[in-house]
Structure formats: structure tokens, C-alpha cells
């Protein structure tokens, strides 16, 4: 695969860590119906980068992402987050590990009746005891961080608005702020732009790219819009029928590679509209 030969330090000069940030080894998921959603997927992320995961519907992208924080239980394989195998953790340890993984969802998944601030603060729930969280007693540095994050994602002053009073793009920004409140080691994004219009989608992807660079946090983005993926990702991986079939820089994602991934002969159609129209 083209990516394995990449240099030890990336363009920002950050040096590869001795233990990779995320290492997925032989991940497989077989559902009770016998359907094999993931087949021996392996992946290593050793630096802060935006990794876009593409593939047709049902190829296993969403399953793969959700296995990493065990919202879906893997059937076999290891998922090493900073050297710790997430799959082997018990419930209590899993909760502790989940604090280090921030997730952003296609449907934003905010608690709609709560305010923006309450939603953002809920990102710290893993760090705050039950009684304190019931009384919304978060440490002052968390409150400060929340206001700062809201400002950073462009929602300064929105903290007391109810979540269901926001537009889609605004809600996704709140979701991003919530994830970043965890100060995570890894960001997972499950189709973050699928419910947004093209302009807002680009804004969100730009924001994610900036935040990844600023906070040196790698992000895996499950995305179906190939153009967006190519424009904003440092690295593209592709799944087909649960198998990892591509892992390289976006420039190497040729039309023939896309045809192999999506299995569609007409993949080149958007580029050769003039031919089709002739």
C-alpha cells in the first residue's frame, strides 16, 4: 500500500510516536444473520491526520468506525488505542477509554431539549462524577474551555440557545465542540456532512481539518462524497464488502481505483459529461 512507505515525520515536523495512536489488527464483524460486515481489516494511524474512509453503502464503513469505540461489538481482532486493546476492556475500562475518543454523528445526536452549553458540557461526563453531573457542577476550566470551543467553531453567544433551535450546520458544530471537550486522542466522524447542504458540508470539513492540525488529533471520517474526501483528507482508505482495498494519498485515487472500489463502470461520468452530452 502506498501509505506504508510515507516518511517518519510529516510536513509539520511532528515525529512519529513510538506507539501508534491507533492500530487496528484483523478487525472482523459477523452479524447474527451471518452477514460479514468487516473482513480482517487492518489499519495504522501514527500521526495527526485526516483519514477519509470511502466505499459504497453497506461496505462496512459505519461498522468499522463504530467498532473502534465499541458502539458495535467486534467479532474478532484487536483495536489498539495508544497501545491499549479496546476490544479486551470490561465495561468500566471501556467507559474510561471512550473518554479518549470523540465521536461526531451524521444526525448530530444532540439532546434537543437541552441548551447548546449543556450539550457541549456533556462531553466531559466521563470525567465528572454522577452527583456533580446531576447538579451541572463542572470544573471552571471546563466551563472556560466550553466557551472557547464555542467561539472556535463559530457559535459564540449561542450557549443558552436550545439545540433544536439551531440549523443543521450549527448543530454539527455543537457536536464537534462536544467531541473536542473530551480532549480526545482520536476523532471519529460518521458521515458528518450527509445531512448538510454542499456549502455547509465544505465549511464543516474545513473546520475539522483546521482542528485536527491545531490539536494534533487524528480523525477518521466516514464519508460517501468522494470529491469532499479528496479535497480535505490527508489519506484515503476504502472498504469494499468489508475488505480494505485502498490505503493511499488522495492524489493516487484514480478513476480506475474508484471503479474498483465502487464497482461502477460509469464512475468517470462526471468528468466526461461533455462526452456523454455529445
Amino acid at each position, binding site marked *: 500500500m502506498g501509505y506504508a512507505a510515507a516518511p517518519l515525520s510529516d510536513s509539520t515536523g511532528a515525529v512519529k510516536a513510538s506507539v501508534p495512536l491507533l492500530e487496528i489488527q484483523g478487525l472482523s464483524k459477523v452479524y447474527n444473520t451471518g452477514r460479514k460486515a468487516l473482513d480482517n481489516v487492518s489499519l495504522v494511524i501514527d500521526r495527526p491526520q485526516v483519514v477519509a474512509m470511502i466505499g459504497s453503502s453497506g461496505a462496512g464503513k459505519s461498522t468499522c468506525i463504530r467498532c473502534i469505540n465499541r458502539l458495535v461489538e467486534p467479532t474478532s481482532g484487536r483495536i489498539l488505542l495508544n497501545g491499549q486493546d479496546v476490544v479486551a476492556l470490561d465495561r468500566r475500562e471501556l467507559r474510561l477509554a471512550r473518554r479518549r475518543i470523540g465521536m461526531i454523528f451524521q444526525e448530530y445526536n444532540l439532546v434537543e431539549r437541552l441548551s447548546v452549553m449543556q450539550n457541549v458540557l456533556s462531553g466531559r461526563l466521563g470525567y465528572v462524577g454522577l452527583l456533580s453531573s446531576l447538579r451541572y457542577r*463542572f470544573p471552571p476550566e471546563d466551563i472556560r*474551555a466550553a466557551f472557547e470551543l464555542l467561539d472556535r467553531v463559530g457559535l459564540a453567544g449561542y450557549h443558552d440557545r436550545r439545540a433544536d433551535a439551531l440549523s443543521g450546520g450549527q448543530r454539527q458544530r455543537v457536536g464537534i465542540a462536544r467531541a473536542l471537550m473530551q480532549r480526545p486522542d482520536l476523532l471519529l466522524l460518521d458521515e458528518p456532512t450527509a445531512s448538510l447542504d454542499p456549502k455547509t458540508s465544505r465549511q464543516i470539513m474545513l473546520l475539522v481539518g483546521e482542528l485536527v492540525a491545531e490539536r494534533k488529533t487524528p480523525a477518521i471520517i466516514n464519508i460517501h462524497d468522494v470529491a469532499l474526501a479528496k479535497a480535505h483528507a490527508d489519506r484515503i482508505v476504502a472498504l469494499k464488502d468489508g475488505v480494505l482495498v485502498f490505503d493511499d494519498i488522495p492524489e493516487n485515487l484514480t478513476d480506475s481505483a474508484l471503479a474498483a472500489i465502487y464497482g461502477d463502470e460509469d464512475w468517470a461520468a462526471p468528468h466526461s459529461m461533455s462526452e456523454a452530452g455529445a
Partner: protein
Amino acid sequence: MSGKQYPSVWQRYSAGERLVQWLWIAGAALAAAWSVSALEIEWAFFADAHEQAADLIERMWPPRWTYFPVIVRPLIETIHIATLGTMISLVFAVPIAFLAARNTTYNQITWLMGRALLVLSRSVNTVIWGLVFVAIFGPGPVAGICAVAARSVGFIAKLIAEAIEEVDHGQVEAIEATGASTLQTYSTAILPQVLPVLIGTTIYRWDINVRESSVLGFVGAGGIGLYLYASINQFAWPQVLVILLAIFVIVIFSEALSGYVRSRIT
């Protein structure tokens, strides 16, 4: 990083909102304390409550199946009381519903009359109606049927009246424009529109009435209630279990039937 200062304090509710919340909570707590204190509860009772319950269940087992033939007829009587009572109530409920609906009633007075009848019927429980009718007709299923009917009229009529008020006005106007009389308009334009609600509500109330009829016997209004009351007073617990199981069966059956019909209607 900009030199911006961010607040480190955030309050979920304003002071005013918190005050209001505390007032509501304090009010509820006061109400609770007042209720419980005045009831003179012997907390010692609850200490061995679970033992008493276990003892009771032990005495009920095994169920006295030989008792079952005795209650077959009362069981059927219970269902008859519920069914006939519901049917009779439907006959009265339709005209009362038209009276109680703003768009079909004659004038303000008739509307108030209709509403008053609804409130009267609905605020008196079936069992209490049972007391009244036992005083009038003496003990027996007739009192039970009247009690069921008296309570159900208000229930059914209220829901039909609401449906009548929500009727599509255009359809009514169209029929009126043909020169039809009021009664003809009602039956051609309004009744078909409220028919699903009517049938659904009636069968829903029938289901509830089966449950209510099972206890009417306590006040002498027929059905299996009498046998249940007697068995409990005689401490004949295995009999009681048989009766309870029988009631369970007919209630579940009526619920299933009611659910089935209502799903077929909508």
C-alpha cells in the same frame, strides 16, 4: 491563541427561574408531607409486608379448580352486563354527542345541557352508579347494566362530540346546499365521518367495561364480583385464585378483541 478571556462560570437557570422551580418543588413536598402525615400510617406494618404477601400467595396455591363450574355462569353474566350496557349507552350517546358538539347543537342552552350530561355521567364512577341503581332496581344484573350504561354514555359521547367538532366542514356544507334537512345532513355528512371514532370508542369502552363489570357484584349489581367478595371474606383463598385467573382471562380476551377491531378500523 488569542488573549481572549472566557468566563469560567455558567449557570443553567437564571435566579428567577430557579426561584420558581424551588417554589414548585417546595409546594409539592408540602403537599406530600401533608397527605402522608394526616393518614396515620403505621410504618411497622410495612416491615413484614413481604412476609404477609408470601404467606397469602402460599395459601392461594393450588387453585381450587373444582370451584370453576360455579363461576361459569357469573362470568358469562359479567360479559353480558358489559356488552349490553355498552350497547345501550351507544344508543343514548349519539344524540347526546350531537347536543354537546358546538357545530351541531341547537343553541347555547342545548350545548350546555349536553355538556352537563357528559360531566354528570363521567364524574360518577361505574361502581357508584351501581350503588344508585341497586337502590332503584334492587340487586341483580339489571342494576349493573344500567350502571355500565350510565358511565359509558358520557365517555363515548364526549369522544364522539370531539370528532363531530373536527368534522370536515366542506362536506357538511355541500349536503346542506342540496336542501337536506338537519337530520339528513347529520346522517349523510357527519355520521360517516365520525363512524370510525364511534366504533373504535365503543369497543374501547366495552373493553374497559368488562373490567368494571367484574367488580360490580361487590355492590350487588351482578356478575362475578359477588363471588369474589364472598370468597375473600371467607378466606377461601384457593377459590379466590380461580376467580382471579378467570377474570384475568376474560379481561385479556376483551383487550385482544378490542385491539384487533380497532386496528382493523383505522
